[in-house]
């Protein structure tokens, strides 16, 4: 069985900061940060900062209304978790692309955007080579899907989650229990 692939979510702009740190109180610095995906940040921003309803916001992000609501639910859960447990929030990752279309030239290895959307780009803006490709993601090549981990209940062994695998096939290498 394979899980369905996630659709690309459109993001208008990257968040201005890459996270939040708690202060005051007794916070253990070694607690794991809450990982907020960029698409989740965008959902929160559109909904609560720009006060759009879920319909409008979903249209802006080019996803369905129900997907948007799911992302929004997850961001509220994560934020609540960070606040209650006093964790750091780190905004990174997610399956996103940006509003303006960017291109990559394979011959001079530059990236450029198309500022005039009505004209189609056929050659590189710098070297004129036709060896170009459209970028789905922006120049931030460090944006990747965050890998999730499965933990063994008995010994705490950690492996990267493999999507689309039956639970019974996911067994711990150390003690053979289900993860």
């Amino acid at each position, binding site marked *: 069985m394979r899980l369905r692939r996630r659709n690309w979510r459109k993001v208008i*702009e990257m968040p201005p900061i890459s996270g939040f740190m708690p202060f005051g109180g007794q916070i253990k610095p070694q607690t794991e940060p809450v990982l907020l995906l960029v698409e989740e940040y965008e959902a929160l921003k559109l909904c609560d900062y720009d006060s759009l309803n879920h319909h409008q916001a979903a249209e802006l992000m080019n996803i369905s209304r129900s997907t948007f609501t799911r992302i929004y639910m997850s961001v509220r859960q994560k934020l609540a978790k960070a606040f209650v447990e006093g964790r750091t929030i780190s905004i990174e990752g997610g399956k996103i692309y940006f509003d*303006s279309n960017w291109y990559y030239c394979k011959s001079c290895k*530059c*990236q*450029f955007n198309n500022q005039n959307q009505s004209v189609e780009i056929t050659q590189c803006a*710098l*070297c004129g080579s036709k060896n170009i490709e459209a970028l789905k993601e922006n*120049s931030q090549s460090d944006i990747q899907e965050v890998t999730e981990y499965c933990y063994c209940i008995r010994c705490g062994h950690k492996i990267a989650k493999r999507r689309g695998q039956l639970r019974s096939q996911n067994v711990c290498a150390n003690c053979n229990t289900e993860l």
Partner: protein
Amino acid sequence: MKVAITSTGNSLEAKLDQRFGRCSYFVIYDTETKSTEYFPNPNKDAPDGAGPASVQFIASRKVSKVVSGDFGIKVKPILENLQIQMITLKGQEKTIGEIIEMLNH
């Protein structure tokens, strides 16, 4: 058509500056007359807002393309609104002369 290139010095041998707002020099190259002009960046040591101020500086010289190492989060939407095309050469050590040669393809 005019192209702005961020430079570390005021000669053709100077390297491309990887920063946009706080680069040392702007080279404005005219593809029609093949002339180059060097402008020292007035916002080089600005405490803040160097990016938007630099955009204003180059936009007043009517450029239609900018070549730099990368553009910051404040600069990108302004350049997009001004219909100025951004070209990024991240992590590449190219000289101004080489870039001008590439523009003359």
